[in-house]
């Protein structure tokens, strides 16, 4: 049986997971090293906690995508523009 083709980096769960994890890292670092501005938050280091939470959620998405990968069928119908959102024209697929 030929190797199955996985959606990989374009799996929407990986995209979500990566973005949230990157934000998690940024916020965690901000929370650790920047002024926590506790007069605004009422005493909580909000950046740190939100950053850690985002890291967890982001990792869960990436783990989910790893454990249950989406298999892209061999023959994917080429998508033309979304008729409700036609703005930029997609180029036709390259031959071959």
């Amino acid at each position: 049986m030929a190797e199955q083709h996985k959606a990989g980096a374009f799996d929407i769960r990986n995209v979500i997971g990566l973005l949230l994890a990157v934000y998690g890292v940024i916020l965690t670092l901000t929370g650790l090293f920047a002024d926590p501005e506790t007069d605004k938050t009422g005493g909580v280091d909000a950046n740190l906690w939100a950053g850690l939470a985002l890291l967890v959620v982001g990792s869960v998405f990436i783990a989910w995508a790893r454990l249950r990968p989406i298999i892209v069928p061999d023959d994917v119908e080429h998508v033309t523009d979304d008729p409700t959102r036609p703005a930029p024209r997609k180029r036709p697929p390259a031959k071959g």
Partner: protein
Amino acid sequence: MTQVPAALPAADTIISASWVDYLILVIYFGFVLGIGLLARRSVSDSVDFFLSGRSLPAWVTGLAFISANLGAVEIMGMSANGAEFGIPTVHYFWVGAIPAMLFLGVVMMPFYYGSKVRSVPEFMLRRFGTGAHLVNALSFAVAQLLIAGVNLFLLGSIVKALLGWPLWVALIVAAAIVLSYITLGGLSAAIYNEVLQFFVIVASLLPLVLIGLHRVGGYSGLQDKITEMASSAPADAGVPPAEQQLESWPGQALSGFDNPFWSVVGIVFGLGFVLSFGYWTTNFVEVQRAMASESISAARKTPVIGAFPKMFVPFLTIFPGMIAAVLVPEIVELKNGGSPPGGASGDGVAYNDSLLYLMRDLLPNGLLGLAITGLLAAFMAGMAANVSAFNTVFSYDLWERYIRKDRSDDYYLRIGRLATVGATVIAIGTAVVASSFGNVMDYLQTLFGFFNAPLFATFILGMFWKRMTATAGWTGLVSGTASAVVVAFLSEDAFGAASLGVIPLGGQGAAFVAASTAFVVDIVVSVAVTMVTEPKPASELKGLVYSETPKEDLVDPDEASYPWYRRTLPLAGVALGMVVVLNVFF
């Protein structure tokens, strides 16, 4: 970035962003535009696979479905409403959205899926011919321009809050940003965009609510503070009594009716039935999300699954408004009848500004950037969607059909590009109109009353009553819209200063009445006209009228074999039960 504001007559900025905030913003748009460019080049069949939406998991289409709607209206409008009226705003979700979403999934979706209708103007053309099609296409185009103005105004107000530019400069800059976003391909990856946007918004609003509740001492602390404020507010400020701000029913403050009974009727019929069914069942930007899925069963489940997160969105949008109304000095002063200077419009603080001020007061740099990113992403995508929808209807439904037939594809593509630019420029004008409303919800509900309520009446009548004639189609639409406009003129403030005040109703109550009037007038006129005109032969109505559509086109044969949590009806029942419970609690 730092050079330009100095050259302008900059006011003080509401929000002071640091480089971390801009970094977060840049990363988001890097992601979205990157995927957009890849999608245009089709470098990977994985992208095609996701964009086509076939066999996309139901949670993705469900989130995309509500995220397409989680734009300016939801976030700024609902927080403005929360600050002004409090808890009764939940009616926009639990009465004004969930039942209609469930109805869409259970009743309408099989019909759409089976009839292969792809847009509302298309349905109008096939069911009623050119008269109703022309009226509908024109009113749809106008509605998109007006709503694009709302999105643009809110987008501009964030640019202003960030950089301190005057509103008109911020509007032009925001319009330029949206144009480049459309041109660079931000929309071609709409489905990625919408799902990402949902998570970024939740990730930024949830900490805002939690920090806010922490500051006021939990929900009971918030209740105490609202009660205290309502009792100490000056009488002429018109602050609703605390029990009306903390209990969803009967919601007199929201509807503007003094009588609790009529208030409930207004909310249930005006908002819950006419406005919300009209919005959700005829909004093809949303319906398209579901139509892309693999089977009737999946298409039906999309709005039903979307209903679950939708139920909890009010906690993220209304609570910040309520917290702002007790924590943010400017909003407190506004609610007590004052007119503090500042605000996004520059002419003083309005309820629309609640969320921005709360972000200023509660979020440290970092989380602030995340919140700004979520808002900008939502408004930009919202306005881009309006402009694109306008573009489609203008180029194909109006220009090609009624003005220049049979030209080349390139010709219509050029017209489409011109329409995009034209729509953006016009939106700057309609944004100025929107900025004159202190609470954008008032304005939006009025617009929905004009456009969606008569459309829904004609749609539903045309679908279920095969005798309804072509003439009845367009006369019903025209008279429905006209009657809503008349009611808005006669009300206290639905048209701002232009309203005459003959009917003693203001705020969103006036919009509910205008919508209900439009609905009733449309039905009455359609029935009357049908009686004196000739119906279409039944053979032309297959797939367009319920009774003329074969039943096997409407069901999915596999559905009965699924476990209950994958079937539409049990899921819809669970959702309905949860909404009833939420209504009892609040």
